């Protein structure tokens, strides 16, 4: 079982990111479960979403307490949301930030990428979720970039889908290059 916790703020597509991640894994024949932290969703309020990926049936409904990967869509929530709590050894942290972020994490692969900048450049809107999923595919290899692209296309259509796919690809290539 591979467990991912996504932190961000309302309006950044945090819940959609978890959903798209689960669709990517489903498209690869795996079982996947995605669910939000059930806050009363408001723009700007801290939001958490979860995704489990497994080769077996997923039954547990508890929130993810020991993630294999944490995706941070907004670094200003890291402290207040305890974003890195419980992360397992050899886990991954992916942070939306154009510059490095001090995490004090040992045995964890930390990757920072300016996802909002890429989103603005490619999509024209500061929604970093698809960008981060592209980067996540390159960083962890848990899902393939092709599956992420297909998942983006199931959630979005037309020009928005096209632009988000391109943004995810840019992030994927950049992360692979810097790995």
């Amino acid at each position: 079982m591979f467990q991912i916790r996504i932190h961000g703020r309302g309006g950044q597509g945090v819940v959609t990111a978890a959903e798209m991640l689960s669709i990517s894994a489903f498209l690869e024949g795996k079982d996947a479960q995605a669910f939000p932290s059930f806050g009363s969703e408001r723009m700007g309020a801290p939001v958490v979403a979860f995704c489990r990926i497994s080769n077996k049936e997923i039954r547990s409904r508890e929130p993810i307490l020991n993630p294999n990967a944490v995706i941070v869509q907004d670094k200003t929530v890291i402290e207040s949301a305890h974003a890195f709590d419980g992360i397992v050894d050899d886990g991954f942290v992916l942070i939306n930030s154009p510059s490095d972020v001090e995490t004090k994490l040992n045995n964890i692969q930390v990757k920072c990428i300016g996802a909002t900048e890429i989103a603005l450049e490619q999509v024209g809107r500061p929604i970093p979720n698809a960008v981060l999923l592209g980067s996540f595919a390159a960083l962890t290899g848990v899902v393939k970039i092709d599956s992420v692209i297909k998942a983006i296309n199931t959630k979005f259509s037309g020009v928005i889908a096209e632009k988000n796919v391109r943004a995810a690809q840019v992030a994927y290539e950049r992360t692979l290059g810097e790995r």
Partner: protein
Amino acid sequence: MFYQLEGSQAVAKAIALCRPEVVCAYPITPQTHIVEGVGELVRSGQLENCQYLNVESEMAAISVAIGSEAAGVRSYTATSSQGLLYMMEAVYNASGLELPIVMTLGNRAIGSPLNIWNDHADAMSARDAGWLMLFAENNQEAVDLHIQAFKIAETMRLPVMVCMDGFILTHAYEKIDLPDQKEVDEFLPAYKPEFSLDPKKPCAIGAMVSPSDFMEVRYMAHRRQLEACTVIEKIGTEFNAKFERNTGGLLRTYHTEDAETIIVAMGSVLGTIKDTVDELNQTKDNKEFGVLSLVSYRPFPDKQIREALKNAKRVIVVEKAFALGRGGILSREIELALKGLDIEIITVIAGLGGRVITKTMLAEIFQQPKDNMIFLGLREDIVRQKYRTILDQRGA
């Protein structure tokens, strides 16, 4: 065919497969995405011959369903929490008038205090209303139970409420096997009501019943509820034969043979409970813990529950609602079903108003319940402190 879908969207598609001709809803909070999904399927033409009605309140939603069902039309609605309470007068009417409406209840807490999250307080408020009530453990079950619900309802001429945990199921994306339309049509043929209101043959329903007959009418309604046990089982078996999924019936057992302790629960917490029990059993040679998933809460299958639990030494009932000033609701009913047997019964009130339930919390109380009435994760320090303040104010 398999899809990765949100619970609400999966149920919307399942409802469309059942070809209701009237779907009515008050589409504002408290509500799920289900009716929104059905609305889109009607508008896009994927659900044909269906009138979708946005109404002004939950009271109107259930009333429209009553009217259309009385006119002999397969009808569906959905609600949650306070919405069900607002419907309640007509909820009783629907069962009293023997109208096979199917309604989804996306289970949520009841205020005050205002809380939009999951528990089973809403469902418990309808436990004596004469509806059949089925609880889904996961979204596949939610889909399958709705398809079975229409058949059960129309066979029994009784309304069926399919309960699925709000947010935990309604908002979760999972892999769902959606049956083909052809197969659903074969399983659930077009609705042929035994009776319906028809202007060409005028008659009245819902006439006043005097004290000399009322008791008999209610007794017969009670008898029909009990008969529904057989029908729910039979339709669950039929569904399993056709779709190869044992997702219906009255209850399901998991490692209960030889288990000393059996956990009883309803709804989505069963998944977390089963994982917890597997981890606990792994450390022992024998399977010490088993699980009973209760699917049918109404009718309450006393006989089948007694049979499944009779060899246990301890039964732990995990329930997401309770009667203030009294305690567990489900556990009292389990106690009645086990009357006369030497089995210790522990009540665990858990997950109220969306409080998180973790495997660690469950494992601890499954192994060593400290009391026969436990509020899981209750912050006792805060309660004590608050209570102290109240006593001080009273000058005690």
